[in-house]
């Protein structure tokens, strides 16, 4: 079997931003001293006159982005998820969300796959924080190709968008030219016994799990739920109707993320049993990214275990 190409979703972000910049002069980028890490350094290099480093001052950066957007520009403001969604939450809520300004937040280094930096930098709360803001769109692409397409879709969407990217290089499985639709889940594999709805780097793990489960006689539907908000209600309900059981997988706390978003839809419209795979309301720790993902149950193996148990096998 050929080696799978691996790229971090943040690389897709950087690449797409440069392409958007070539096409649209209203695209500007802001950073808080992490342009190299967030990959917006690529944009800075290509268009130095419309990249604004704000220094280590994320709250200020979000409001500067709001001011830029109020004049008709389309700013992409970047930092690590911890400092974008975490530190600058109230600035995003009041200066971007409330006035519905056209700011795109490019948050990289989401989740525990940040790795060695440890818990202080492993943001597993950003979906929860951003979901609480009315009108905020939340996208967490599964690979670099989807990330590129998502960034372009975010540009075309009028209003605030929170884009969550990862630091870790992960397998690329979308075809070049993939078209992203905000609010639409992607069925990666059809199935009837259980639906596994995943987001971010867990989509690839879920697909791998789906193959192993099939060998065990469990026919799992696998969904890439890259838009966490607005959630694809129709797909959640049709998967529940068809499979009767749903597993959710996210590199995020089980509190306030994709799992709870899916549960909210189901509990009101079609009560269905759900198992949530995520970071179990604990802080992360230092370690190599892949070892951490395994240790915290964010792997194909654990998805197989949980799903097998869920299906009574």
């Amino acid at each position, binding site marked *: 079997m050929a080696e799978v190409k691996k790229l971090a979703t943040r690389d897709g972000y950087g690449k797409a931003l440069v392409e958007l910049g070539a096409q649209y002069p209203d695209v500007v980028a802001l950073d808080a001293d992490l342009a190299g890490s967030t990959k917006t350094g690529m944009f800075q290099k290509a268009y130095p006159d419309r990249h604004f480093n704000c220094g280590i001052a994320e709250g200020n950066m979000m*409001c*500067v982005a709001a001011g830029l957007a109020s004049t008709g520009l389309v700013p992409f403001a970047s930092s690590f998820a911890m400092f974008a969604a975490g530190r600058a939450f109230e600035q995003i809520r009041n200066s971007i969300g409330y006035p519905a300004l056209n700011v795109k937040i490019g948050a990289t280094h989401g989740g525990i796959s940040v790795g060695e930096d440890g818990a202080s930098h492993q943001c597993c709360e950003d979906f929860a924080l951003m979901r609480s803001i009315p009108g905020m769109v939340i996208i967490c692409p599964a690979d670099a190709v989807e990330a590129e397409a998502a960034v372009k879709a975010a540009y075309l969407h009028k209003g605030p968008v929170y884009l969550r990217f990862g630091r870790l290089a992960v397998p690329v499985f979308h075809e070049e030219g993939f078209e992203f639709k905000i609010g639409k889940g992607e069925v990666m594999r059809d199935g009837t016994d259980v639906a596994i709805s995943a987001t971010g780097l867990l989509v690839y793990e879920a697909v791998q799990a789906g193959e192993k489960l099939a060998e065990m006689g469990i026919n799992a539907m696998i969904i890439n739920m890259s838009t966490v908000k607005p959630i694809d209600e129709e797909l959640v309900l049709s998967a529940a109707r068809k499979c009767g059981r749903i597993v959710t997988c996210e590199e995020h706390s089980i509190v306030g993320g994709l799992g709870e978003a899916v549960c909210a839809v189901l509990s009101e419209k079609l009560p269905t049993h759900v198992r949530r795979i995520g970071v179990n309301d604990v802080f992360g720790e230092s370690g190599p990214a892949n070892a951490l993902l395994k240790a915290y149950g964010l792997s194909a193996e654990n998805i197989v275990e949980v799903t097998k148990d869920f299906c009574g096998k």
Partner: protein
Amino acid sequence: MHQTDKKSLEILACKVRLGIVESVHSARAGHPGGSLSAAEMFTYLYFKELNIDPKNPQWEDRDRFVLSKGHTAPGLYAALAHRGFFPVEDLTQLRHLGSYLQGHPNMRTVPGVDMSTGSLGQGISAAAGMALAGKYQKKDFRVYTLLGDGEIQEGQVWEACMLAAHYKLDNLCIIVDNNGLQIDGNIAKVMSPYPIVDKLQSFGFHVETIDAHDFDQIENALNIAHTVKGKPTAIVMKSVKGKGVSFMENNAGWHGKATNEAEFEIAMTELKAALAELEGK
């Protein structure tokens, strides 16, 4: 400034004060003290300084004003109403359920409001963003923002100041309303932001200090701001909180509360008398 110009501005400022007192009274809540202390500045900005068009509030080349101290919306709304952005009668709808005149400025509902504010420390950053946009797009519009002297205790204010100087935003003018009082009392006792002028200068601003209630000084400082190149300008204006209503002046208790019926009558009588005197009636 010509005496007749000055007189007409003083009349307008008095009308803005009447609008503040009436709107806060009708809302049964709001922030009269810091609205009244900046009444001359609101008046000068909207009637003399800003290049704006009340018939086209979204005109893209307009000058921008961001009320960073968003709780003094009654002052901004009164100035906007008298300038023709919306009917003066609507001021008494302030803070009412369903009203477009929200308690703090809402750019999506109030014509003429350039930025939604209310959370202190954020408006100045947005104003810096607008000024940055003007520079990138090579547009001539200018951006103004008004801050409270208590507000500058917010660290974000200084992050924004750093950015404004770093990007040489000479199209940005920040105004600090130094009325000396915040909710919990004297700013020097609560958490001193002094020396304000030295701090702003060391952050890279050209600084002018003026009497907030003197139109000649306001005009002079804003004219100087136009000539300053390569750095932003800050105007620190010494003001009297609650200016124009005797029992509100220099009283922190009037930072954020409405008058009762008796107080309202006294305030209106005082302001109407001042207006009549200005109008020579």
